[in-house]
């Protein structure tokens, strides 16, 4: 046995060697980025349930996949997914090829690619959401619609910056502040952008308490922020049971492309409200949600391979995502101000910013800002209406973009 030759082979097959050859330094940068994301998730508690998984997925893929090195042991293979998307390749749309040649993260990623994980997450969200505040005050839907402004402005901005229609639609949906919807739409329209879009969406959702308050104070007067809203009517059990059925029928008939997201959201909610499926509701809210979160986080993180992630486009996506979030907040606040005027000062415009669908973070921010202006102000339940309306609104926006660009 030639010890020197064996050591040389071991060295050349190691990741340390791959750092030194063509483009390997990019992996080092991505490893540093994943450590920063882990820090933000663990120490700063930025959406930790997803961000820790995404960051670790990012770490794993950049430790095991080097463009110039041997990729046979990689956990995730970009080239397999390129072949999957290439209509001229024999492995076009072949999950069999992925199963046969893929690593662990390739196999987990099938759930993202097939749109299973985002839909199952929506099922859990539906089971955890009380739509009562929305049912008791249907005007909230207008705020949920207004807060989709950022989606379409960012879409327009992305086209102006040179992205294709499909890519711009996927970037725009970051403004919906809805991670599963962003992932669902991006895997359908621009899978090559999934990594940066998912990271931008979840990072900005975590940063809502920092992004929204300055805009809220800028666009509203102290008098408007002080408004105490009247208690809404009590919603009966029957109404809560009928609601998911009506919404599913109406929205899916309007935009059939929303069926996976809206269907799962409303099924989860029906299990919660019908009162005879408590076991299922409990499973969807807890066990299933946690399992899917594990798979979703780590497989989305796997899409951040260095040679794809480190690009000028990623920076553009990060900037456009922030713009989308800001304009969604502004859209909700402006319609909130109109409603304040039309209602004779009975509606606090701060609840408009909750129209972005980050549930319940955005509603909590409205509550905190309202209470800062008037300590006896309790806006949380009023803000939950626009907040859950935003979930439906972003699903409709995604359905529209999917219908146009698919």
């Amino acid at each position, binding site marked *: 046995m030639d010890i020197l030759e064996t050591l040389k082979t071991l060295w050349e097959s190691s990741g340390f060697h791959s750092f030194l050859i063509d483009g390997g330094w990019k992996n080092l940068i991505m490893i540093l980025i994943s450590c920063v994301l882990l820090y933000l998730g663990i120490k700063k508690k930025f959406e930790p349930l997803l961000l820790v998984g995404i960051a670790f997925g990012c770490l794993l893929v950049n430790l095991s996949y080097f463009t110039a090195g041997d990729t046979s042991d990689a956990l995730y293979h970009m080239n397999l997914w390129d072949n999957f998307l290439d209509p001229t390749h024999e492995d076009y749309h072949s999950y069999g090829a992925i199963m046969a040649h893929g690593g662990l993260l390739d196999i987990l990623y099938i759930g993202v690619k097939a749109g299973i994980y985002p839909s199952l997450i929506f099922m859990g969200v539906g089971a955890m959401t009380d739509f009562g505040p929305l*049912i008791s005050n249907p005007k909230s839907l*207008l705020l949920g619609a207004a807060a989709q402004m950022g989606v*379409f*402005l960012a879409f327009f901005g992305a086209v102006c910056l040179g992205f294709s229609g499909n*890519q711009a639609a996927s970037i725009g949906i970051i403004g919906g502040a809805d991670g599963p919807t962003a992932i669902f739409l991006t895997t359908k329209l621009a899978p090559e952008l999934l990594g940066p879009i998912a990271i931008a969406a979840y990072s900005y959702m975590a940063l809502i308490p920092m992004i929204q308050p300055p805009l809220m104070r800028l666009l509203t007067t102290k008098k408007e922020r002080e408004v105490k809203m009247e208690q809404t009517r009590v919603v009966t059990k*029957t109404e809560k049971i009928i609601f998911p059925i009506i919404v599913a029928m*109406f*929205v899916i008939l309007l935009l059939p492309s929303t069926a996976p997201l809206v269907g799962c959201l409303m099924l989860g909610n029906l299990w919660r409200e019908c009162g005879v499926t408590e076991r299922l509701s409990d499973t969807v809210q807890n066990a299933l949600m946690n399992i899917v979160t594990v798979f979703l986080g780590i497989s989305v993180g796997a899409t951040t391979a260095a040679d*794809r992630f480190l690009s000028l486009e990623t920076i553009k996506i990060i900037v456009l995502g922030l713009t989308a979030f800001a304009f969604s907040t502004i859209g909700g606040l402006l319609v909130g101000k109109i409603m304040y005027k039309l209602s004779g000062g009975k509606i606090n415009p701060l609840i408009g910013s909750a129209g972005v669908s980050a549930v319940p973070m955005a509603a909590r921010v409205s509550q905190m800002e309202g209470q800062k202006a008037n300590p006896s102000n309790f806006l949380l339940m009023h803000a939950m209406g626009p907040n859950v309306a935003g979930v439906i609104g972003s699903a409709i926006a995604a359905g529209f973009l999917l219908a146009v660009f698919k």
Partner: protein
Amino acid sequence: MFDSNFFTAAAENVKEMSIGDAAITAVFGYCVVFCGLIFLMIVLYCTGAYFKSKNEKESAVAEAAKKIAPEAAPEAEKELPLAPGSAGHVKLFDVPDKEAAMIMAIVADKMQKPLNELHFISIKEVK
């Protein structure tokens, strides 16, 4: 340094758009979201109105039944003497005593006022 070719030539089915088309799509998309949710709002108002009138009818029937057979107020419901320093009684609807105490403590803390300076009239669980 940057490998951006992948992004620009990524998928075969990518739709290139002019800025004018993008503007029209954006405005149209925003309108679709508004129209969809306005229609849903109308549906919710209609179902809400139906259930509201149904509940009113049911409560009117219950009220009438109460008037026909007025029952004597139970001894326990009579006004109890107030504790020294108390701001009055609070009526609880489907809220356990412990939760009510917790809610009152949280409200007092958030308002930064002593609990005995606040007068809670009722605490009701919104279902």
